[in-house]
């Protein structure tokens, strides 16, 4: 049974993060209680322990971790908090798995407005609730002003692969397989970059940041043997396919015309001199499936709200060089190579 409320005064949200918010004393306890625990509210956190105790699920366990340093922290279509939930859930989902639990670790910079922190935490809580994946444990640290950039978040996720599903893996692409994508490419990166550069277009470009596990669940239901599943985040579709080509020892032949890119994203990329196929996505996946599975997987993707614009974009080919080739709309072919250098730093 709980005794009287140790924090008679409410957390002052007009204030800023101070070093005492990370020192483990009462000020920190109040921050955790009234900001984090209040937002993330679930029975695991309610235990108020430094760890969460959960029942082991049936099936293969999947675990992942990811750090989020996106700048700006708030962007059209989300903020660092929602991104930290979506990104990690998606990494779990790309194993064909169902995400079960998340943890979150915050590194806060002294002076960061508490009101902004609340917006971040609320977005995180909302994303976790919508995904049905609780944030069951966490940590908060504060660094001196100038040693961080407002807020950095690391989330870890645990999930389970349903019995009967073969885990997709980057080394399982085979010549003849079909490449599918779940929608338009480059939205997230262009949303961030246009915000950073103060670019405005006739339509606002919003980040596509979203949790993809329900889409994946629908896909593995119709095809329990998806060869490869990836969310093309940093480096975009081109870089992700190069990674897979290298892992699987194959090449790719893509059809430029078939790859969905929103007109405003294409226009922004044209203006900025970048290629949308190298730009990050946070709510899209690519699937590589056996040819006889392609139609049913594509149909399942299109039937899901997050996969309405899914498309078949190319095939896996034999190629000792591991080149990702693009048949251009123009009618020639060119390579989509690995991205060299920093095209867009701190995009997630």
């Amino acid at each position, binding site marked *: 049974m709980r005794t009287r409320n140790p924090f008679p005064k409410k957390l002052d949200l007009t204030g800023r993060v101070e070093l005492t918010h990370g020192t483990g004393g009462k000020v920190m306890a109040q921050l955790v209680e009234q900001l984090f625990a209040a937002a993330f509210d679930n029975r695991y956190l309610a235990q108020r322990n430094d760890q969460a105790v959960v029942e082991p699920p049936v099936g293969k366990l999947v675990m992942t971790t990811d750090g989020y340093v996106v700048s700006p922290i708030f962007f059209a279509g989300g903020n660092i908090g929602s991104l930290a939930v979506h990104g990690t859930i998606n990494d779990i989902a790309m194993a064909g798995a169902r995400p079960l639990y998340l943890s979150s670790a915050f590194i806060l910079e002294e002076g960061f407005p508490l009101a902004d922190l609340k917006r971040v935490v609320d977005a995180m809580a909302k994303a976790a609730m919508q995904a049905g994946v609780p944030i069951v444990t966490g940590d908060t640290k504060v660094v001196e002003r100038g040693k961080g950039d407002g807020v950095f978040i690391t989330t870890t996720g645990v999930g389970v692969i349903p019995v009967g599903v073969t885990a997709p893996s980057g080394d399982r692409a085979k010549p003849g397989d079909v490449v599918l994508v779940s929608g338009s490419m480059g939205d997230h990166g262009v949303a961030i970059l246009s915000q950073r*550069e103060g670019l405005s277009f006739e339509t606002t470009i919003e980040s596509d940041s979203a949790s993809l596990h329900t889409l994946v669940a629908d896909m593995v239901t119709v095809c329990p043997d998806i060869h490869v599943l990836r969310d093309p985040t940093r480096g975009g579709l081109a870089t992700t396919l190069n990674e897979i080509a290298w892992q699987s020892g194959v*090449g790719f032949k893509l059809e430029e015309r078939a790859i969905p890119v929103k007109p405003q994203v294409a226009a922004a990329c044209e203006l900025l001199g970048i290629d949308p196929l190298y730009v990050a996505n946070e709510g899209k996946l690519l699937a590589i499936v056996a040819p006889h599975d392609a139609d049913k997987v594509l149909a399942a993707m299109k039937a899901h709200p997050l996969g309405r614009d899914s498309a078949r974009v190319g095939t896996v080919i034999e190629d000792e*060089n591991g*080149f990702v080739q693009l048949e251009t709309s123009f009618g020639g072919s060119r390579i989509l190579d690995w991205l060299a250098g920093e095209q867009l730093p701190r995009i997630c």
Partner: protein
Amino acid sequence: MRFIEEFRDGSVARQVAAQIAAEASADREYKIMEFCGGHTHSLCRYGLIELLPKNVEMIHGPGCPVCVLPIGRLDQAIALARQPNVMLCAYGDMMRVPGKDRVSLMRARAQGANVKMVFGANDALKLARANPDKQVVFFAIGFETTTPPTALAVKTAQAEGLENFTVFVNHVLTPSAIEAILGSPEAQEGRIRVDGFVGPGHVSTIIGTQPYDRFARDWKKPIAVSGFEPLDLLQSILMIVRQLNDGRHEVENQYSRAVNSVGNLKAQRLTEETMELRPSFEWRGLGTLQASALKLRPEFAKWDAEARFTMPYEAVADHKACACGDILKGLKKPTDCKIFATACTPESPIGSCMVSPEGSCAAYYLYGRHRTSPTPEPERRTA
């Protein structure tokens, strides 16, 4: 995307290419230099070189500002960035170019130098306003297109009385480079032959087409100032082939939707007000050229990094195996370089032409490797 896709129509492109093939006479060679690195990239990206008949050869020119900047100037920028209290602002393309001992701005930054990547002079101005305790230096490079924004930044700094902002000017002039190629010993000896030029359209939005008149008149070279989309380039090549067939040598304007004969007078005035010719300037590949680059006028010395800081210049030779110099002159193709795609790659570049998005080595590497790669692709094996 309107106004772009029309110029990327593959079927029209093949018609124009067929027209070039039909009009180019089989008994002669047409050696055409596209001056600008942006054009080189379009040629490679769209596979236009393969569409052309064998006797129409594209020679890639030195129009890549990052590529032609000599190592010595880059080293000066790196040394500046290492000075206490200096924040050096550079274009992204510049970050990975290796200087002396293969140290780039990126590497210098990792070693503690204060280097910021910016999209333009205006971003550097903003950083200067936001960091009054720092000396913010803009590493200004580029041909006539990027010069006016630098000039404007200097004028703005003057108007605002911004004292912690300076510019390290490395702006160079297109006509000087063309002159240098035409007058080079290699050209005199016949080792480089350029029959005509595809002129850089973006440069001409600023300087117009007039500055090329003398090359048509005195050097008897046909010139077509060109846009950057595949159809622009093919049309420009066709214009040059026709001039050569007719024995004409004129400046033609293919890019009339953006370029006129006099250019952007306001931009020219800005440059004129703030900058003057340097007596000489070292170019990578082309050597030291008289009156080929700009510097700030003495009345703007307050905003001139070279006047405000001590910046000794040391000329540094290119890496021995690197063929950037010959490639920039049009003497060699990227694939003629021994270290192309082996020791020199975009991830670990040895020469500047492999780094810049406008460098011809980068263009060959990024878009065309599957054509030159030693292992044939399966498609080709069965063809």
